[in-house]
């Protein structure tokens, strides 16, 4: 048996299997979503500096200088926010959420391709067509299998989450459905169902 000592050698060995399996995974992803879903990054960053500046009564030159400083401050604070430093209005905001989308499915596809190729090698088959067909099927079926589990898990979670929502009790506070990013996202999502 060949020894694999580097990633390049690993790639050389599984190249065809991984590539074909990725096609299978891509077909599976497209079948499920009817489109290619790019990764989603959710960042709940808040910065009130521009609002304060808008309300201020400075002259045009002073306002221009302040705009420059505020933009710089916003950029620096955003960078710190990305690094995990939370203070001020961002002290209790959500962590950064990253949903892989199609990348996650391709990752599953690559894994399935490696498994398919390894299994074929173990049986002693050298025919390249069998590698191609098996990898394609493995990529598609592996993804469908995992998606089925994810779907079931989410369907089961709905009951639990409904119970959680029922356990909540509202306390008096005025409603402001304006600024936070997740509210905007939720509104967009709601609109997309109606369409």
């Amino acid at each position: 048996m060949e020894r694999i000592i580097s990633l390049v050698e690993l790639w050389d060995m599984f190249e065809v299997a991984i590539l074909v399996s990725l096609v299978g995974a891509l077909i599976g992803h497209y079948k499920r979503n009817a489109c290619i879903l790019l990764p989603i990054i959710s960042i709940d960053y808040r910065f009130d500096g521009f609002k304060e500046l808008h309300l201020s009564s400075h002259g045009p030159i002073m306002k221009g200088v302040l705009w420059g400083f505020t933009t710089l401050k916003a950029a620096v604070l955003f960078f710190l926010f990305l690094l995990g430093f939370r203070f001020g209005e961002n002290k209790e905001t959500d962590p950064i959420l990253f949903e892989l989308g199609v990348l996650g499915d391709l990752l599953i596809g690559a894994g399935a391709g490696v498994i398919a190729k390894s299994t074929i090698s173990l049986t002693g088959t050298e025919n390249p067509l069998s590698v191609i067909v098996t990898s394609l099927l493995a990529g598609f079926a592996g993804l469908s299998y995992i998606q089925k589990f994810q779907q079931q898990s989410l369907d089961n979670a709905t009951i639990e989450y409904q119970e959680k929502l029922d356990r909540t009790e509202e306390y008096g506070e005025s409603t402001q459905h304006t600024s936070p990013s997740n509210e905007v996202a939720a509104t967009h999502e709601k609109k997309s169902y109606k369409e």
Partner: protein
Amino acid sequence: MKVLVSSKEKWQLEQHLEVLNNPYESIAKRRLAKSKFDLIYNRAATRSYVCTQTQSKGKKLAQLNEGEH
């Protein structure tokens, strides 16, 4: 234990649950909604727990004060 939420949080939770309940929505969006629901709910639950603890401590102190008098 009841979890105390503001009307804004309640609205957000309902929105996220609606996404989670929709079987025709993509898995990615449903999972994202689930994560956001968890974040809001857990934050409110922690706050409610602290609030309940503080209230019970206050009651105990009041009872002790009454006992001394």
